[in-house]
């Protein structure tokens, strides 16, 4: 990859994401779900459950986990790993908040998608 540096993309204000909720960022290779936990930590994951493709962005957020709206698989939003008896993994992307803006790492987005 030719990108060694991070390219942070401003995707909007933190206030645009409801607490304990998620929003979607569309990319060419599919949607990324951006979540805001009750403590204002922000996460970015592939918006696609490995089970049946459910949109994780529409799941119920509890603590730092999200439950898929279609069949209730639970994912750790930090690692993207399915919890409990289910086995599966979704991609995660570096995301951070600066001065109330949510920044998503565009370089990692491209790498993650190309892999």
């Amino acid at each position, binding site marked *: 990859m030719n990108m060694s540096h991070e390219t942070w993309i401003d*995707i909007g204000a933190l206030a645009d994401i409801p607490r304990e*909720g998620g929003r979607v960022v*569309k990319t060419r290779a599919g949607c990324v779900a951006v979540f805001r936990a009750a403590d204002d930590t922000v996460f970015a994951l592939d918006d696609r459950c490995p089970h049946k493709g459910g*949109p994780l962005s529409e799941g119920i957020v*509890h603590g730092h986990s999200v439950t898929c709206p279609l069949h209730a698989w639970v994912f*750790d939003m930090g690692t993207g790993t399915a919890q409990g008896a289910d086995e599966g993994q979704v991609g995660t992307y570096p995301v951070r908040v600066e001065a109330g803006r949510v920044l998503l790492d565009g370089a990692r987005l491209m790498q993650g998608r190309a892999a």
Partner: protein
Amino acid sequence: MMAEKLVIIGAGMASGRMLEHLIEAAPGRYDVTLFNAEPRGNYNRIMLSPVLSGEKTYADIVTHDADWYAAQGVDCRFGEPVVKIDRERKIVYSNQGGVPYDKLVIATGSAPFIIPVAGKELPGVCTYRDLEDTNAMIAAAKPGAKAVVIGGGLLGLEAAAGMQLRGAEVTVIHLMGHLMERQLDPAAGYLLQKALEARGITVHCKGATKAILGKERVEAVLLDDGTIYDADLVCMAVGIRPETRLANDAHLEVNRGIVVDDQLRSSDPAIFAIGECVEHNSQLFGLVAPLYDQAKVLAATLADAEAVFRPVQTATKLKVTGCDLFSAGDFADGPGREDIVFRDPGRGVYKRLVLEGDKLIGAVMYGDTADGSWFFGLIKDGTDVTGMRDTLIFGPGFAGGAKADPMAAVAALPPEAEICGCNGVCKGKIVSAIEGGANTLDLVRASTKASASCGTCTGLVEQVLAVTLGDSFVMPAAQPMCKCTDHTHEDVRRLIKAQGLKSIPAVMQELGWRSVGGCASCRPALNYYLLADWPLDYRDDRQARFVNERNHANIQKDGTYSVVPRMWGGVTTPAELRAIADAADKYAVPMVKVTGGQRIDLLGVKKEDLPAIWADLNDAGMVSGHAYSKGLRTVKTCVGSEFCRFGTQDSTGLGIKLEKLLWGSWTPAKVKLAVSGCPRNCAEATCKDVGVVCVDSGYQISVAGAAGMDVKETEFLCAVATEEEAMEVIAAFVQLYRENSRYLHRIYKWVAKVGLDWCKAQVVEDLANRKALAERFEISQSVYRRDPWAEHAQRPADWAPMMDLTREAAE
């Protein structure tokens, strides 16, 4: 050696501490000139709260008095604001003239953030920063005066408590869901709110200030939700921002604060900055501990010694007498992090430790903070806590023993708390029955009637038995609500009412939830229980809802949604059908389908199109059909006496009336009705949750049918003569279900549990109770009988993707 000229702008706590260190390390090294915009020297600003509350005076909190400055030979320019820094010629200008410097320290601190609302400049609006603000609040906070504090953080709460101690009626308005959200998690925030409310302070969370009202001076505060609080004084304590104007004008590097390196040096090597005005490694500083560290480092640097500023962990305590809280470190949830939670509902104690690997990284405590500094030490030192993990939460003095008691919530109930709602039996009566020999559930039932009717309080009665009898009573195993708690759904519902719990964090704290924020199973259930029990107090938590109810549409397997407009009683018009057809064309709806409930379903609508299609359907007079809700779905009808030669009554008319009565209500699970105009029953009313079959003499109401996973005929509830009676019985029955059933149980499951006879006794035989139930249903409907589509159609941006990167150029 000639003394160098050191000019300091700002006589606050950071620069004051720095001066002390510098004079000690290098006496006589500098000629010091100290500017301060306030007409006084350094005082302990963080002790203004005890001054406000009357526990201290200004004289008690002065750090450096005139004698001290004179003894150190400091040239004091108090009340002389600096207006400009000339870096080229190294001169600082105040409103009185210029002073040259060799080295300059900017310690301008921070300025309170003023929210940009109408009325912010009215007399009577103040901030909470300095002695002038404090004196303004002391003057205003007379007994009986009304004060509003905007901001429920550290500063705002100290202002509120101080004014309340002086006799004012204080209201705190806080934008976030719980108080002090930067230092506390929701559970601790809830306990704090409870403690403040207990001392008479009104707390309004999730309150956004819209305007400050008043003509000559402040009179009231208006919130976005329409609430108005009368106010003789308004204190804005919503946050601070670094005061960087001088540095900006001098073209120093400034981000959010004045950018400094590890020696507190700005982008100009002759200029340093310290305190709340600086930004170090992208971090700002508001608490005093890191400022004192900065003071040490800057004094050493100015004395040509080597020193490096490394911010350390800080701990927070609230300086409000009687509110014991403590937080330190990082207590956000995170991957690889684990929580140890301890709750003692009876004593109002909450402790939470956050571990990462073998180390403690954060702690939040409320009610019992005695071990706070010990935990803080473990966090700062990065101590390996593996060996003491089992007993860590009990603190350093732990010597083995007690486990958290799952029955603490019931044990803590006062004797007058009602356990059995049906028969009005309180805890004290049950306890005396048990002490009188009733040592089994059946004996308690026989002697007190507790849990002898609907049975939903059985679990609680058993817990009272266990608490009273100790080990001699063996609790039968009951299915807990979810893995977050040992309580059953029924126990939780009963305790919400008995303890007056009105928020999700309140339930989780008082009932000893084991998880931090619940799970996808208990959060929707608690949200329902709270809105059903406290329709006027509790506000629906949209984020605790399953996707379909959150988005007011049913999600399909491909992530699109279905849209079903309401057709009252299954009756439509050519105009409505045209509007539906137009919407289907306009939004390229892939399938238009007639449903089993006599509605039209538009399937395959994209999420971002939902607000627009709703607006179009609203324009044609249609509202949400709630085809997605645990609530009233449809009232299906046949044509009835108006057209049908067999019809005995106006079944369509009654169906429409029932639907207009019930629509918008939330119920434990979906509710479907039907009204048939004669016993031929073309509307299939006898397999619905509630069915009405019209006969010549009136209306036969039957309930608890099913036609899904289970198929079951309805059971006869009663026959009534008039439409009005039918409607009152049905509203009362639905309310009985709303108040008593566990979440997700359809009516037929709930009736199987409580028994049809019990339902009949409540809504058929006891006319006063029927009326009361119908009235409570109407109170709830005054909040929920409205179209959610109309509300959300106003905010289309919330439904679109947050950002579309597909149109960005490739790398």
